[in-house]
């Protein structure tokens, strides 16, 4: 299926860009006339994924994060967040509620749980040393 509309934004893994990324995704989604609740869910899921890239993917370095948003027929929105950081050894474990890597910073371990709850589909692919890609699918119902 070919996308009706798409954007691709690349930005450095600075935490100041977390806000930029979620606002960008929300602005792209706004063409589907989503509800305030749907916008809030998109912003939160994107914020979680981008924070993971910064905190885990590029833990001790600065790297590029790619945000792609694609719009398909039927109100299907696909958001891809990709880093070329250190990758995840055990994806299943990383996605468990309350799992954290146990670093000294305060983390809730609820990131993936929130993403899964707010998006219709969450797909994570990762290779240690190569990077991580998180793909969200969300259907925005037409209110017309």
């Amino acid at each position: 299926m070919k996308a009706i509309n798409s954007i691709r934004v690349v930005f450095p893994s600075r935490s100041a860009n977390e806000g930029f990324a979620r606002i960008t995704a929300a602005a792209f989604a706004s063409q589907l006339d989503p509800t305030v609740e749907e916008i809030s869910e998109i912003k939160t899921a994107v914020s979680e994924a981008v924070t993971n890239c910064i905190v885990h993917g590029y833990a001790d370095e600065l790297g590029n994060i790619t945000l792609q948003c694609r719009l398909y027929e039927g109100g299907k929105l696909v958001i891809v967040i990709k880093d070329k950081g250190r990758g995840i050894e055990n994806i299943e474990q990383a996605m468990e509620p309350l799992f954290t890597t146990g670093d000294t910073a305060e983390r809730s371990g609820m990131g993936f749980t929130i993403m899964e709850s707010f998006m219709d589909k969450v797909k994570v692919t990762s290779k240690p040393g190569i990077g991580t890609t998180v793909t969200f699918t969300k259907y925005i119902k037409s209110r017309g």
Partner: protein
Amino acid sequence: MNVTFQNNFNELEVRLCGEIDHHCARGLSESIDFKIKRHRPTLLILDFGGVSFMDSSGLAIVMGRRKLMRSMDGSVELRHLCGGTRKIFDMAEISRYVIVKED
């Protein structure tokens, strides 16, 4: 993120305003902890009424402050949870750990 503090006897009230994410989390936690250590309240009130966006960093902030307050035999109360913030706190079953004051 804008934060204002009000100290009433044994209570420290923290009014949060704006967006809470990982970017502002550390600075926010540090400024709250500074006030807690200075005033040593028995109840820390976190007012989320002015929060327009929050991700899981907000959970980590609450759980971290709970840990500090418990170490001083104090507790934490959350106020004015609504919309997105309430959904995230409910998901984490936060009321098992802190007081949630219903409006």
